[in-house]
């Protein structure tokens, strides 16, 4: 409980030391149908401002066709202490991986 409160007051939209502007995460798409991938972050005061800064910092040289900007505070992130419970268990159970299963002879289109 205490820990949760501490985490929420340290929300990432709080002004970092070097600027009064909020932080935004930038996602770029490099071709139609491709996924939007996280490129980095920018500081900005408004959504339009964030979009422009994202364009100038991350989209000028590449083949970017689409941009998303998201207030950093809107991202719900796992915390490092979750890593064990959330991500470890799968690896020792081979049957959870598709490679575990042999494809029967004669099956096509898999």
């Amino acid at each position: 409980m205490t820990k949760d409160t501490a985490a929420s007051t340290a929300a990432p939209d709080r002004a970092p030391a070097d600027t009064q502007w909020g932080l935004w995460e930038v996602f770029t798409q490099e071709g139609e149908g491709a996924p939007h991938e996280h490129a980095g972050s920018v500081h900005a005061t408004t959504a339009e401002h964030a979009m422009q800064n994202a364009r100038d910092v991350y989209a000028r040289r590449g083949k970017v066709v689409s941009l998303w900007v998201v207030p950093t505070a809107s991202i719900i992130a796992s915390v490092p202490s979750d890593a064990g419970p959330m991500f470890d268990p799968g690896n020792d159970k081979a049957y959870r991986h598709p490679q575990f299963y042999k494809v029967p002879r004669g099956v096509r289109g898999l």
Partner: protein
Amino acid sequence: MNAENRERGTGNGEPGGYPPQAGGGNGATADSWVPGARPGGATSGVVENSTFEYLLRLADDRLVLGHRLSEWCGHAPILEEDIALANIALDLIGQASALLKLAGEIEGKGRTDDALAYFRDAIEFRNAQLVELPNGDFAATIVRQFLFDAWDVLLLERLTAATNESVAGISAKALKEARYHLRHSAEWVRMLGDGTAESHARAQRALDELWPYTHELFLVDATDREAVAAGIGVDTETLRLAWRETVDRVLREATLTRPKDGFAPRGGRTGRHTEHLGRMLADMQSLARAHPGATW
């Protein structure tokens, strides 16, 4: 107009009697290391070739403003804006380079874009005075950029229809860039004008100081008219109303007040500049002049 045309000659190579060949100490011997850097007679303000002259007007606005913006590199208020201003500077300098290259070809004296950028003196520059003014504070840089961008978008929209394919092509590429420049500078004018008391006061002061210099953007002389007739130019007077609409709308949103018209300095288009251009060029041209012909 025709009479002026005849007086000026048709611009086919040899300059007339004035000024005497190779004025001052800039004779051919001093030029030999930069091919075509200073062909004889090129240092005068006399119009020989209106197409060349007009292209210089288009190019020099971009070259000078681009250099002014580049002065912010490493000094802008925040990293993101530092990159944004450098991006715009590079766009403008790229446009200038393409236009100067074309101007050099049309002049036909072997001058390259670099020769035209780095080996002309202030009196040979044809930019409007607005773009050569010192950057001032961030508000002044942004307001100047906005006033220019709003004009530039309208100008380039027309120039894309130029009958000269090179001019139309350069303009089409530049127009995409200019639309983004306007989006960026207009948004900043809104943020500064409708921001804090301090940012509002600075933006209004910048607007008051820069406003007189906007009038020159809409002046039309014989060179412009010849360029229009030749299918490479725009009668900028016809852009004024649309420009006012854009400016008024953004200023309203920014809670800024459009200054009254009055003082309207002019002269940049014929080589008469403020004292600031010479100093800026001394800085901009020093490297190329200290190491002529250097490549990097």
